């Protein structure tokens, strides 16, 4: 019951023309020589790069497109096949200092990364009371509480976390319940986020939770918030 490739080609050619108006309508002729095909293929390198240059970048997406949890915030624009402009915002491989980290690359397992304790990854789980799924964030990606709170806001966009460190509390606009940001440290104790210097927090945080205010009786701030 395997469909013959030829029949499929014709069927999908017709469908394909309706599918992608932005692409040149070339027949999917598999016998075409490689050079003919090259004429019609999309150029997928960054703008300004010649097609024949030795170092061809084959990916549609620049490195920053695949950053952890898509934190760049420009996701809505990246799906236009014709648009190249989002590539301009991406740091290139030529500038190692500015290199953005790819998700899951190089393919080293988290267990191994955390065990090596290199300047690699420090994945911790983030849970929100009432939300069905956990997320994982890599604390190595952030340099401050503010940076982390912005990322968390993107992830759980129903909360205005940004005001957290001013007001100390968050409000869920839907049901009016209040949330606080807490973390579990290496000793298994639950603490308020924001009480200790960022670097120490990043090393000692095992997981993060947005807890409803009503459940925070056991959490001790180390020092009174400033």
């Amino acid at each position, binding site marked *: 019951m*395997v*469909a013959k*490739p030829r029949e*499929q080609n014709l069927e*999908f050619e017709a*469908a*394909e023309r309706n*599918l*992608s*108006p932005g692409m040149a309508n070339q027949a*999917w002729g*598999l016998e075409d020589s*490689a050079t003919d*095909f*090259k004429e019609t*293929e*999309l150029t*997928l390198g960054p703008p300004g790069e010649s097609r024949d240059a*030795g*170092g*061809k*970048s*084959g*990916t*549609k*997406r620049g490195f920053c*497109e*695949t950053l952890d949890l*898509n934190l760049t915030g420009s*996701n*809505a624009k990246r*799906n236009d*096949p014709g648009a190249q402009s989002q590539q301009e915002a991406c740091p290139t*491989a030529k500038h*190692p*200092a500015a*290199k953005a*980290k*790819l*998700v*899951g*690359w*190089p*393919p*080293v*397992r*988290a*267990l*191994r990364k955390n*065990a*090596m304790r*290199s*300047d*690699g*990854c420090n*994945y911790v789980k983030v849970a929100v009371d009432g939300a*069905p*799924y956990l*997320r*994982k964030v890599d604390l190595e990606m952030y340099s401050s509480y503010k940076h982390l709170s912005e990322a968390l806001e993107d992830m759980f966009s129903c909360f205005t976390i940004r005001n957290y460190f001013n007001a100390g509390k968050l409000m869920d606009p839907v049901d009016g319940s209040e949330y606080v940001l807490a973390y579990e440290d290496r000793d298994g104790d639950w603490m308020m986020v924001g009480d200790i210097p960022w670097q120490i927090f990043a090393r000692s945080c095992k997981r993060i939770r947005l807890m409803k205010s009503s459940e925070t009786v056991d959490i001790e701030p180390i020092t009174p918030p400033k």
Partner: protein
Amino acid sequence: MMQPFPDEVLEHVFSFIESDKDRNAVSLVCKSWYEIERMCRRRAFIGNCYAVSPEILIRRFPELRSLEIKGKPHFADFNLVPEGWGGYVYPWIEAMALAYPCLEELRLKRMVVTDETLELIAKSFKNFKVLVLNSCEGFSTDGLAAIAASCRNLRELDLRESEVEDLSGHWLSHFPENCTSLVSLNIACLGSEVSFSALERLVSRCPNLQSLHLNHAVPLDELPNLLRRAPQLVELGTGAYSADLRSDVFSNLAGAFSKCKKLKSLSGFWDVVSAYLTALYPVCSGLTSLNLSYAAVQSPDLIKLINHCPNLQRLWVLDYIEDSGLEALATSCKDLEELRVFPSDPFGAEPNVTLTERGLVFVSGGCPKLNSVLYFCRQMTNAALVAIAKNCPHMIRFRLCIIEPHTPDYLTFQPLDTGFGAIVEHCKELRRLSLSGLLTDRVFEYIGTHAKKLEMLSVAFAGDSDLGLHHLLSGCESLRKLEIRDSPFGDKALLANSGKLETMRSLWISSCSVSYGACKLLSQKMPRLNVEVIDERESSDSRSEGTFVEKLYIYRTVAGPRLDMPGYIWTKDRDSAIRFS
């Protein structure tokens, strides 16, 4: 048709046939053989938990004793599969608790296992013997306590590389005093300390213990106590391998190792203090497998150790070994079959060690039995790959990871097409391949032409166009698993080769150029595939036909649509459900 033998005779004959492939062939001979075979099949392997349902399995094989199930796709290891995707084993256990009261063995990989699941296992299977949880998650040490307490004939408890919520080490003490059946215990992934006295007592009373993998929390000075109680060990995973340099600790350790005459495999070695490696010398000549991939040991010390291990067949090591260490390996270890070199600093911009293509060429030249390679490095040449291919025509697994995407041959600046082409051309038995570096569509043409035994292929940042994917799908006859990321493959090749997808276990494509519209078309055309569009960025209602999907996971199934999908997965059945509601 007259049956020359009674059923019992056939059943007895079939009991000598163990491989699934052979059993499947037997069941196709005729109806009565199908019936006899299915009643006496004792073991089943399910490569994708969503390809079949518990009900279908139980209906066909009512007398299983051993089951292996795999859940999430491989790229889940690298955080590419979002949380909540699936792979829950509970429904399987729930169904089997009723259908297979005699179940003895369960091996799970990349599945979500809860404490509730473990408690159900402990309660339901009176003769439960083997539990292997490979890269699983979702359970805590409370669940382990239930297993330890209830499974009176437990032989194997192996938690390799699982993510366990570590509430305390107390669970180990739940093994009853009359439990003496353990053969294998692997707790390497656990964080917290277990009671050493409980561990010592457990080890003492299990005379058949062959494999013991400790966790980091077991200190080095505790190790001799355990070894003296289990000198019959064949496989040992140490705990932390560091202590203050003291001669009494050293001689105690060396003395304990010298009593372990059967030791063949060593691993663990977290936080190594190199001076203590020489305590291993008494067992080195018998070692066939050495895993130093967590050990930050410099090349000279590694070379000294490897020179004492002439019978090594498998070595896992960090790139601290450098080219010089690999040259020594090639000289000392002529029986080497498998080499894995992991990166010590994968995210550093500059190399921190001198590990290049030369190291791998040395080993390929010096070790004629080399058939399995995983190699992380920062530079490669076509010439090196051609040399490796010619040196190792019996290669079965070749996984090369050049850390920087799109890295060309550093001498010629050419793509690495020719090099990988040589690999697939010379290594006719190749079953698994992972590509990296700068690659054009040409490499896929080579693979499609030559890699006829290839079963699993991993592609990242490679290729120019759909032609590349088309070469793979139309050429690789044995392809079962294909995973692709960040490559310019799109709709055409996928749709033109949709029939191929039913001959494979699964296809993963992420950050490529497959449109949402093509996914919908593919879904309609191929009812026996589950086409999962995994996209956390926006809801499928607001998605346009031309939008490229973030992640796509396609697999064949006889179980129909999944009922446990999170909201960020679109399938055609979701759409229909909305339309008819």
